[in-house]
């Protein structure tokens, strides 16, 4: 029982559907394989050419072949069709093919539903304010598609379509907001996510190769934000501790995260405890980045003997963690095994470096003097600090120390640790972040990927492990004033070769801070609105989120509220317009009733004329004229105008007694 008026894939329908699908796929093109993007474009162009120019559509066999090509292509390209990326590629290819073959209404709905699902897949890659806004606009376009595809209706302009779709989306927002707040959030995934679910998250890794951290430093992405309970420590104390690396093969360094326990290793701390709250961006690994030495193991985390703080679960969503740290501490003895590990060097590597270390060792018997000598070496030799170091040759440490002398913090840290070990001082590399930018608007510290850093820790008897930062010897500004001081910002006006005036620089900085404040609120309140935050938020409203019945009642109440709001809104626009002619005629009958001639509701104008004529002959001609005009207007006679009728009714002033 089809009630759909002979559905056709009209030009308007095909155009809107192509526009919608293309706009939802546009952000995906950055990570889709190029052949999918090209294939999609070909399919949609073909369709448009068919609809507008009558180019014939491909045969069924071609379509089946293309479906097979898309599926096998994705399977080969991603080695699976189940992951996030492969799934998106498949959906994109199928959306293009389905657009190409729209024949009946159901095809159009399939295209729309595929597209709506593709909107959600965009959020797996990016959930910024920009993405959110763009996708809201795409949703409006899809609303137009639904409207255009569902029923034919009169043809309308693009603006009218967007306007009415926009209105209905706006009308839907209140309920969506209530559902967003109230719908119970479940923690954690329902089933295990495919491997690539969180690929592309950037951050420090458990291995350090020359060039890895400088790569990170090209990124302006936020690593985490920190809000201190009291005054923050000075910038040169802001060392955020990440992976600790003991072992090297002469080229790369690796971190060991075992054993871990809930108990902190034995150490003595002095000075004040620094308490702070860290909002960690997802980076797909376990490291949390405590300030220097953590003195408290947060819930859901463990600690290794070398003070790496590790989350039990991989950090795949934004997380807020309360932490406390100390910057002054001392540690107990070093075990024999650990001492061996902290002195090990790969056999037959770094020969020139060993030689240098031995010569220094011969000059200094005191460890402290030796370390100073090493730092002096870095300071006085022509070392350069750069984000784009040249390739160091077969032995990265020797090449860096004696050849290029150009490197980033990881080169300095690695070279220093090798030298220290060769000189008989137990040493290890610590990677993490250094510094951070204070946002005066939100009063918090932003630490970005570009603040990634590597430094060394050496063991001194009596003092235990303590930090030595060879980079600080070369570029003290890096430590005291942050990356911007050491190396100009990657993206900025000076890229154009123009040094902006100081005022503009300040203004740009405050603009950046303002934007980050908005971003931070978006992250905290929209993206970070998970089960924990929901519970806290609802509790502030006096609701217990764990009580499903209570939440259910609230959802119902808000549903009713929003529905009556929308109902009022829709029905308000549907109040009948009063017919001016009817209104005037009512005025006329009211005037008659004042002189005692009341009208029956069912009485027509002509019988009224007869009645008035017999009751009040003096009014006969006037009433006849008015009734005639009324009849003429109601039955669409072209000779009569509303104005004429209005004038006649206005002039009709019957007196109580005609005589």
């Amino acid at each position, binding site marked *: 029982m089809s*009630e759909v*008026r002979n559905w056709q894939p009209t030009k308007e329908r095909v155009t809107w559907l192509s526009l919608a699908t293309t706009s939802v796929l546009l952000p995906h093109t950055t990570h889709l394989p190029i052949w999918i993007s090209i294939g999609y474009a070909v399919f949609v162009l073909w369709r448009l050419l068919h609809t507008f120019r009558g180019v014939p559509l491909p045969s069924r066999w071609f379509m089946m072949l293309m479906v097979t090509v898309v599926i096998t292509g994705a399977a080969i390209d991603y080695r699976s069709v189940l992951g996030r990326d492969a799934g998106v590629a498949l959906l994109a290819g199928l959306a293009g093919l389905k657009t190409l073959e729209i024949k009946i*209404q*159901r095809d159009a*709905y399939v295209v729309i*539903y595929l597209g*709506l*699902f593709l909107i*959600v897949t965009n*959020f797996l890659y990016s*959930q910024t304010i920009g*993405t*959110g806004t763009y*996708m809201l606009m795409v*949703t409006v376009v899809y609303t137009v598609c*639904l*409207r255009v595809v*569902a*029923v*034919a*209706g*009169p043809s309308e302009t693009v603006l009218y379509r967007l306007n009415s779709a926009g209105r*209905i*989306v706006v009308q*839907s*927002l209140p*309920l*969506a*907001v209530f*559902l*967003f707040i109230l*719908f119970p959030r*479940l923690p*954690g*995934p*329902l089933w295990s*996510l495919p491997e690539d*679910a969180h690929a592309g998250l950037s951050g420090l890794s458990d291995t350090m190769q020359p060039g890895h951290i400088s790569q990170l430093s090209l990124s302006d992405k936020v690593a985490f934000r920190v809000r201190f309970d009291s005054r923050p420590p000075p910038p040169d104390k802001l060392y955020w501790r990440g992976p600790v690396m003991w072992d090297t093969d002469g080229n790369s360094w690796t971190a060991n995260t075992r054993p871990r326990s809930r108990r902190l290793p034995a150490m003595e701390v002095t000075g004040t405890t620094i308490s702070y709250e860290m909002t960690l961006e997802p980076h797909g690994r376990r490291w949390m980045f405590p300030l220097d030495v953590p003195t408290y193991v947060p819930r859901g985390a463990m600690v290794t003997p070398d003070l790496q703080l590790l989350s039990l679960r991989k950090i795949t969503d934004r997380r807020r963690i309360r932490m406390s740290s100390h910057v002054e501490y001392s540690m107990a003895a070093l075990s024999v095994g650990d001492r061996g590990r902290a002195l090990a060097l790969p056999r037959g590597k770094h020969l020139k470096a060993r030689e240098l270390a031995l010569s220094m060792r011969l000059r200094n018997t005191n460890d402290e003097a030796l370390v100073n000598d090493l730092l002096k070496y870095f300071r006085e030799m022509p070392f350069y600090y750069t984000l784009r170091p040249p390739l160091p040759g077969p032995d990265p440490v020797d090449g860096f120390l004696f050849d290029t002398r150009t490197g980033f913090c990881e080169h300095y840290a690695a070279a220093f640790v090798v030298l220290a070990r060769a000189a008989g001082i137990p040493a290890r590399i610590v990677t993490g972040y250094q510094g951070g930018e204070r946002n005066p608007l939100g009063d918090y510290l932003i630490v970005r990927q570009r603040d990634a850093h590597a430094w060394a820790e050496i063991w001194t008897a009596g003092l235990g492990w303590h930090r030595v930062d060879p980079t600080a010897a070369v570029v003290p500004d890096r430590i005291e004033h942050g990356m911007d001081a050491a190396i100009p910002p990657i993206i900025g006006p000076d890229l154009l070769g123009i040094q902006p005036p100081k005022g503009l620089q300040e203004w740009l900085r405050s603009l950046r801070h303002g934007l980050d404040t908005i971003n931070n609120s978006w992250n905290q309140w*929209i*993206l970070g609105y*998970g089960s924990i935050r929901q519970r806290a938020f609802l509790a502030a409203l006096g609701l217990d989120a764990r009580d499903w019945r209570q939440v259910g009642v609230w959802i119902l109440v808000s549903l009713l509220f*929003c529905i009556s709001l*929308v*109902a009022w809104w*829709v*029905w308000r*626009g*549907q109040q*009948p*317009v009063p017919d001016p002619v009817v209104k005037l005629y009512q005025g006329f009958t009211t005037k008659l009733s004042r002189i005692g001639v009341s009208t029956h509701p069912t009485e027509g104008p*002509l019988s009224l004329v007869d009645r008035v*004529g017999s009751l009040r002959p003096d009014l006969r001609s006037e009433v006849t*004229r008015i*009734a*005639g*005009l009324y*009849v003429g207007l109601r*039955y*669409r*006679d072209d000779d009569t105008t509303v104005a004429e009728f209005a004038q006649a009714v206005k002039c009709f002033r019957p007196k109580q007694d005609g005589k």
Partner: protein
Amino acid sequence: MAAYSGSMVKKPRQSELTTQSHAVLRQRIYILPTAQGLGYALLLIIMLLGAINYDSSLGYALTFLLVSLALTSTFYTHGNLSGLVFRPGATPRVFAGNTADLQICVRNAIPQPRPAIVVRYDNGRAKKRPMDRPGLVEADLPADDTTSIALPVFAPRRGWLVVDGLTIATRHPFGLFRAWSPIQLELACLVYPRPAGRPELPRRALQHPNSRENEGFDGDDFAGLRDFRHGDSPKGIHWKAAAKGAGLQVKQFAGGGGKEIWLDWLATSGDFEERISQLALWVVKAHEQRLRFGLTLPSGQIEKSQGEAHYHECMGRLAVWEAA
């Protein structure tokens, strides 16, 4: 005669048909999701599971927006029907075996257009043959206007075709929900018998009247006024006269004269319906040839005359005539 399409009745009372109208009340509108709506619900469930699994806040947000969008659309669907007023329109006559376009006047009193209003008539027959398909028409109603829409209904037999139990429905705006409401509107159409049989007129019955040979044949001459009857086109009404209080009158135009003929029941053969079809064919032929003709039935006579009104009177008599 087997009952069909509602019921076979004697001619309905005219007054009843003209005054009756039906307003669609809010309370009588029903609404249910369509197949597309169920597909949409499935999509939302998948999206919600995805949002939960990937813990994507914007995924939740979009899912809830789409839920809300569908719920909001139900008000548009519902409102698209609410408050419409239906009146039967003037329906043209139709021969049995053809499709009658039953006219319905719909008043949309609101300042917004109402797209895609479906009027549907289920005749309750199995939908095997194409002619048994339900009568169906979809129309877009402009804002604040009255629209006349034609509902095609198959008229299998002569007599009064009375159609009631109509349904109006709409899927506006997204096709996710279908709202419908039964409307209490009785549409009637007089179905003329199917003209069939020998095409040539009965020869012996042809008569040559003495005079009137030279009277004009064209029907454009103004011949005077007569009282307005229901079914007359408003264009024919003499408004000037009406405005002067002379009542509604219709301008009449006269046709020419010619040969005269009696079309007699006794001149036909075959069974009852065949004989009626034969007479109908003769009436059509005689009318086409602009003859003056009269109709003789066992139940009585229609005097010889000519013109549209006479033609319709004869066909009407044939349409409703039942053997005693």
